[in-house]
């Protein structure tokens, strides 16, 4: 083993890493030389990505020691100090990008995060885009970029801050040959300008690895060998790296090395399996596929090559019926494509570019489910699943979840799934992107067998030239058009090129009509910006605020829903949350039938609270009608009521209330008692005259703040706090958990942004949105509901600001515990709606609550803001009256934010 050069950028000593029971790295020790281009090679799932994420500080070190740029990576302070000098580009097509942001905005975000000034950012973005040939796409949202362009953008984002240590995890996976060449030219140029920069790259392309200075070969979580490519080849006695790698494998792990050979096809004219005629697809004014025609015979392997974003995927989607063509037509097995034709779907296997299997099912369960969905005979399924697992080398991971698997193995699983039901036609969109060379060979052997033996038609897109050479015919595509369509040999010969790759690039350059971008301004001459350190950087915080605000602006539906939705809710709840009880149904069992008894009933029937139903005929009738919920109240007036009353004998009126809704029952009982007392007083006056007044007193009830005791006056001000709780909390929770679920959280892990900067940065736009909401709701309450506003508006607005600060912080706190958006949404609804509506005094005052609900109510911010809101609207409260409310709300935010900072992790576990 070659000794590492004396100065190293990173030293790894005895590092092990496991995910649950799976061992990803075991006792790895290696020193990575500084100022060199280091390659990390090895098949899928040997721990390359894990090692890189540990180097970048994106993952917690479980065991062992890693020193990067002269310091210990377990030390959070050291990580914070050096992370501006590291750039990390994770695996996967643009997983750390923000899909709704444009190319330039994505770059701008990273530039701000690392503290570049405005002019410097513009200069760097321009030069990076020019260098990668992406200037034309600077305003296109990242989501609409093709896979390869996302990779380029990812690299640009990593390069924007002049890192000293560049960590690239399979950066050229899924990138077309021309772009790949440009990509490495770019890196070479940057290294020329910055000779001190160290680069470590994981790659599946051995021909790329040949150009690196120094290689680390890995196998099964261990380091197999290190040294320069020539070194490794010499040691293994092999003439290329592929073979060298295999020779280095321990005894018994070596695999089949013969190059793949697919026997030629019998040249007779077989029937046509796929036929496309003048296919065209437009998205708005952008033509993705332009007048494409081809015919593929049954059993043929037809290759689709082209630059990134040239329309390969779109064409394939039209063939599978996922997209309707704008013009032209396509036929499969002689039938016009009908998206609803289940029979055709059963005969076709499709594999899309992005992993689209169920991450919640294990490898085996995924295979099993798809076999069943394709209607295979249940008895044959276990055998078939077993065979596919063996064939694609999935045995070791059969019972694992795909999420934990490396990209290459996930691709293999996708392939296995596409082929599980033995389809007659396979449509495969870059099936081998990210798959290691050995597995790729294995895969092409299978394809060859399927085509030649079983007559399966295969339509496949690829960026690998050696794969293209295995196809019977290939088409070169660029910018939606087919440039040339023939056998690989004929295409190479026609261009007079040495290799297919050269021919391909020549065709592309012809099509582009200009020299590929060469000398753009070299990025970065400015010294590293000084503003990277510090405990709290306003700049970094604001770059997250800006990011979040931009994403919010790109989603006008979300914005409209947040603003309009709360107004609608206020309307609904303001009118609906009505505590006035009116028009309750009641009926009377009048056994007296005198003027007096009717007088008694008339008092009740005449009030606005009750409406009288048909009289009751007896107890059975009463039981039946109350049972059906028809009556809220039943009265029974005993026989001889009037007579007994006149004689001064004790009489009793019976009243039955439906108690199934206790709130209503209490109100009914209150009304009945009140009217009863009123009737008695009236009768007493009639009988005893003024004498009855003696010894009497008056209870003058003043209903303060809401003299008419209108529900709206009480409820509308209380609904504002509720709405300012629910909506902001949901938005902030999802704002963070979304990043976790979709992968861009890694930017937070590896950039200098601190936890507090991240959280407050994310929070700010939602605070602003909530304040806008507050203004709208208050205006709505005053103007539409005509609730008089008597207090101080500025004082109220200040309380609102403190309050929404707390409620958005609550969303952040919830988000720190959640990984999936579904759970996060559920948790937020559960943890805000119930305390907000039940424990905060919206209906029942907090002082009357009991048990845990009381405790929650006392500390919940909504309680205090409901007091503030009702106070400001109805009680004419001013600044000085809000003291307690301000204090309570001021105390809440630091506590909630502090807890969020405490629970938020700055590294993946």
């Amino acid at each position: 083993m070659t000794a590492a050069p004396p100065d190293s950028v990173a030293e790894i000593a005895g590092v092990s890493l496991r995910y649950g029971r799976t061992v990803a790295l075991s006792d790895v020790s290696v020193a990575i030389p500084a100022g060199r281009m280091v390659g990390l090679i090895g098949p899928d799932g040997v721990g390359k990505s894990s090692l890189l994420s540990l180097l970048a500080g994106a993952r917690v070190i479980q065991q062992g020691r890693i020193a990067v740029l002269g310091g210990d990576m377990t030390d959070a302070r050291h990580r914070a100090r050096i992370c501006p000098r590291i750039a990390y580009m994770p695996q996967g097509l643009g997983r750390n990008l923000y899909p709704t942001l444009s190319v330039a905005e994505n770059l701008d975000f990273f530039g701000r995060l690392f503290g570049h000034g405005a002019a410097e950012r513009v200069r760097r973005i321009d030069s990076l885009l020019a260098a990668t040939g992406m200037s034309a796409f600077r305003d296109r949202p990242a989501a609409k970029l093709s896979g390869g362009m996302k990779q380029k953008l990812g690299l640009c984002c990593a390069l924007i801050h002049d890192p000293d240590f560049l960590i690239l995890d399979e950066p050229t996976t899924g990138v077309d040959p021309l772009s790949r060449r440009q990509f490495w030219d770019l890196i070479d140029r940057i290294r020329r300008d910055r000779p001190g920069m160290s680069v470590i790259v994981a790659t599946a392309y051995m021909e790329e690895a040949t150009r690196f200075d120094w290689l680390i070969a890995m196998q099964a979580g261990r380091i197999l060998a290190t040294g320069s490519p020539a070194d490794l080849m010499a040691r293994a006695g092999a003439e290329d790296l592929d073979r060298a790698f295999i020779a280095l494998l321990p005894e018994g792990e070596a695999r089949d090395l013969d190059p793949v050979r697919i026997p030629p096809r019998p040249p007779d004219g077989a029937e046509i399996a796929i036929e496309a005629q003048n296919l065209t697809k437009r998205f708005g004014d952008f033509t993705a596929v332009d007048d494409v025609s081809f015919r593929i015979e049954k059993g043929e392997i037809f290759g689709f090559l082209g630059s990134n974003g040239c329309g390969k995927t779109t064409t394939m989607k039209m063939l599978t019926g996922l997209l309707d063509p704008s013009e032209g037509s396509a036929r499969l097995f002689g039938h016009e494509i009908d998206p609803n034709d289940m029979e055709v779907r059963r005969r076709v296997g499709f594999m899309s570019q992005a992993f689209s299997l169920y991450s919640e099912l294990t490898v085996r369960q995924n295979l099993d489910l798809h076999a069943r969905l394709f209607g295979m005979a249940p008895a044959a399924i276990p055998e078939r699943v077993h065979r596919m697992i063996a064939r694609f080398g999935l045995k070791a991971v059969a019972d694992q979840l795909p999420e934990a698997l490396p990209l290459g193995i996930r691709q293999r699983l996708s392939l296995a799934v596409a082929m599980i039901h033995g389809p007659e036609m396979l449509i495969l969109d870059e099936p081998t992107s990210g798959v290691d060379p050995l597995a790729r060979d294995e895969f092409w052997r299978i394809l060859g067998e399927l085509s030649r033996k079983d007559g399966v038609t295969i339509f496949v897109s690829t960026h690998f030239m050696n794969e293209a050479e295995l196809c019977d015919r290939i088409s070169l595509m660029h910018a939606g058009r087919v440039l040339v369509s023939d056998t690989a040999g004929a295409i190479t010969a026609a261009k007079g090129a040495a290799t297919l790759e050269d021919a391909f690039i020549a065709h592309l350059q012809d099509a582009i009509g200009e020299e590929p971008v060469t000398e753009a301004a070299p990025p970065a001459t400015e010294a590293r910006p000084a503003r990277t350190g510090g405990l709290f950087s306003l700049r970094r915080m604001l770059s997250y605020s800006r990011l979040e605000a931009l994403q919010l602006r790109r989603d006008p539906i979300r914005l409209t829903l947040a603003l309009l939705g709360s107004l609608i809710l206020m309307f609904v709840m303001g009118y609906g949350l009505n505590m006035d009880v009116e028009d309750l149904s009641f009926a009377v069992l009048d056994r007296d039938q005198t003027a007096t008894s009717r007088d008694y009933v008339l008092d009740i029937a005449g009030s606005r609270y009750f409406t009288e139903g048909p009289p009751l005929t007896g107890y059975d009738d009463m039981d039946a009608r109350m049972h059906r919920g028809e009556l809220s109240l039943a009265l029974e007036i005993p026989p001889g009521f009037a007579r007994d009353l006149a004689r001064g004998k004790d009489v009793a009126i019976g009243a039955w209330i439906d108690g199934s809704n206790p709130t209503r029952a209490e109100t009914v009982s209150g009304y009945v008692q009140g009217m009863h007392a009123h009737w008695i007083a009236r009768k007493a006056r009639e009988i005893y005259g003024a004498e009855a007044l003696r010894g009497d007193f008056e209870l003058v009830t003043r209903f303060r703040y809401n003299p008419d005791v209108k529900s709206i006056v009480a409820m509308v001000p209380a609904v504002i706090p509720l709405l300012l709780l629910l909506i902001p909390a949901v938005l902030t929770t999802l704002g963070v958990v979304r990043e976790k679920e979709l992968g861009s959280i890694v930017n937070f892990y590896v950039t200098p942004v601190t936890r507090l900067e991240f959280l407050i940065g994310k929070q700010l736009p939602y605070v602003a949105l909530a304040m806008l909401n507050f203004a709208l709701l208050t205006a709505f309450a005053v103007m539409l509901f005509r609730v008089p506003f008597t207090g101080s508006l500025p004082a109220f607005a200040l309380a609102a600001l403190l309050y929404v600060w707390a409620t958005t912080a609550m969303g952040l706190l919830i988000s720190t515990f959640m990984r999936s958006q579904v759970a996060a949404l559920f948790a937020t609804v559960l943890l805000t709606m119930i305390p907000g509506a039940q424990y905060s005094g919206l209906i029942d005052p907090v002082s009357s609550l009991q048990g845990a609900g009381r405790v929650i109510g006392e500390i919940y911010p909504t309680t205090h803001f409901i007091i503030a809101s009702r106070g400001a609207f109805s009680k004419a409260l001013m600044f000085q009256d809000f003291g307690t409310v301000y204090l309570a709300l001021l105390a809440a935010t630091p506590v909630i934010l502090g807890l969020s900072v405490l629970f938020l992790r700055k590294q993946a576990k």
Partner: protein
Amino acid sequence: MNLRNVWQLGIKELRGLWRDPMLLVLIIYAFSLSIYTDSKAIPESLSNAAIAIVDEDRSMLSARITGAFGPPYFVTPRSITTTGMDQRMDEGLETFALDIPPDFERDLLAGRVPAIQLNVDATRMSQAFTGSGYVQQIVTAEVSEFVAGHREATELPVDLALRARYNPPLDPGWFGAVNSVINAISMLSIILTGAALIREKEHGTVEHLLVMPVTAAEIMLSKIWSMGLVVLLASGFAIVVVVQMALEVPVQGSVLLFVLASALMLFATTSMGIFLATAAGTMPQFGLLLMLVLMPLQILSGGMTPRESMPDAIRAIMSFAPDTQFVILSQGILFRGAGLDVVWPQLLALAAIGSALFWLALRQFRRFLA
């Protein structure tokens, strides 16, 4: 329609749920602890109402009146001054303040009909009315008893015998418990189906399904049965274990009938979840839409405040909401012991609402996939 596919895809949904431990914890919480706390927190309609008394009379009678207030209906009244009263009410510390004027006792005995002032914070609707009724009763009783020692009664001997049926102690916890179960059912079923669909869309797995021989109806039905089953089991548990056993609410009617009704309810709400998911593009949009639908469903279904008091238009609209029908029906079954003969109109309504929502959702879902 291939029922085997529906079955297989449903099993897939269940496995997915099993892999999200946080979600499982939340489901368990929503159907146990949350319901328990909720039910226990709800006060009797008048309990521990905050009251203060300004006693300017300082007589035997005023002391007697002051002594009559206390738990459980009121807190032990605080004695305050006239000036303190306004301040304290402004801060929301007291809901009621009773002002007994100077010479109240003397004037009363002299037959001068003195006035006591009761100040009520009418922004606290739930206590304002009932509370002032209680205050009136208590003061009247004390005054009558006091006066009775001095003079003959001129009251009419008419008694009002009030009885509450179905929930004799008028314990709002009973109602609250059942209402929490209903809320949890609609919340969970909408989130589980809708959010799961959005997640599939965001991860590209829906597209994948479309190239397989599976129809939109099969995908939808699989989600409905699997998530419906989870919520159904959880709600059955909540009714039997939490409501009946832990909270000791006497359930009158048939739990089986309730479970059958819940199944119909879930058919409607899961369809609604899918419908909402097709209308929303991303998870944050869905989250907002969820709030927009869930809040009115819960607040206006009659579970929180009586339906009788809502404006006619809202009442009419809300009668098309599954929650409304389900609240009526559950109250009937669980409290009044109503049987099929009584609740069939609501069951029929639920089935109709569910079918309409399913049809709408299916139509949208097909478009969503295309």
